[in-house]
């Protein structure tokens, strides 16, 4: 039995959830176009999270992104891995940039 302490291991537990989220999102994407669009949109979402926690909890955020990416490529094994990586990265950078430059202020 694994000895887990939620207060200490919460990033790993949350990362596992993100891994499954990525896996199911990729599995439910019926076509490559849907897969890449969803990948980009999730990247935008992570971009905001990364911007918000850039000064305090950037390592857990990085862990979530990596876990999501892993789940997503496992679910979308049939698609182009390079394109998935590219769209996710583009989404994260775009999301971060929009907030860093204060183009729109969001909640």
């Amino acid at each position, binding site marked *: 039995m694994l000895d887990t302490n939620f207060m200490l291991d919460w990033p790993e537990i949350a990362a596992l959830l993100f891994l499954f989220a990525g896996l199911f*999102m990729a599995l439910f994407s019926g076509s490559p176009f*849907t897969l890449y*669009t969803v990948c980009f*949109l*999730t990247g935008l*979402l992570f971009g*905001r999270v990364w911007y918000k926690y850039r000064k305090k909890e950037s390592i857990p955020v990085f862990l979530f992104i990596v876990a999501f990416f892993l789940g997503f490529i496992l679910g979308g094994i049939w698609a182009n891995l390079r394109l998935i990586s590219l769209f996710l990265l583009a989404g994260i950078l775009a999301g971060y940039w929009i907030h860093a430059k204060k*183009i729109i*202020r969001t*909640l």
Partner: protein
Amino acid sequence: MSFRNYLDKVKRYFWFSKEEWLSFWIAVFCLAFIYSWTSWGPAGQFNLETGLKNLAIAIILIGLTLFVHHSGQRLTALWFGLRAEQKIWWYGLLIGLILTILSNGNIKVLAATGTLAYMLPVHRLGAFRYGPGVNILAKIVMAGPIANIFFAGIIKTIEWMGIISPAIGEKLFMLNLMFAFWNFFPIPPLDGSKIFYYSRNIYMLIFGTYASYVVLVHFFEVYSYIYSLLLGITIWLIYFIFVERKL
């Protein structure tokens, strides 16, 4: 506060700033995209012309709905000497888009904005509890969904009078109810969360009244605010007896 004073406040502070307009149009476009996802051609087919036409209609309908929602909150905020500002709820908007794409339009989340209230110091002079509190914030955000429900009622009346076509009237009516429904969810920063934090009883009363209205309209074709309110009071009473009293 005199009515002239209120009108002056509306004239000075009601209108959207440049940044708010940008957020407004981004929210409108994304929500219109979500709303019109299933209207891009006949079942199972894709037609660009039909899709763009339906997207344009959706932009107008969503724009009206969102404007009514925001206006209700802004006007109420000014009444209390505060200024309401609506911002995009980034996660809600993106999750809505992702869910719409993944479910092929079967799940349409129309929750994309949250409201903040700033104090207008000059207009709060002498007010009891000078700063903005959860009480006033709850009243301000409540005005949004309620404005949508009343607007839906007005649209239905206009439709019955034959001024607008039933197709547009029904769409706008349902859209306003749907938009109010999503905003009533007690998830921060949606309107429902602020009412919920202020008072669970009031939340149950309002949400019960709203749900009753939807049930009456959808299943019985009864368009009555009074019956809805009576049912809402009943729902609140049941909640109070079985849940709230035992907490």
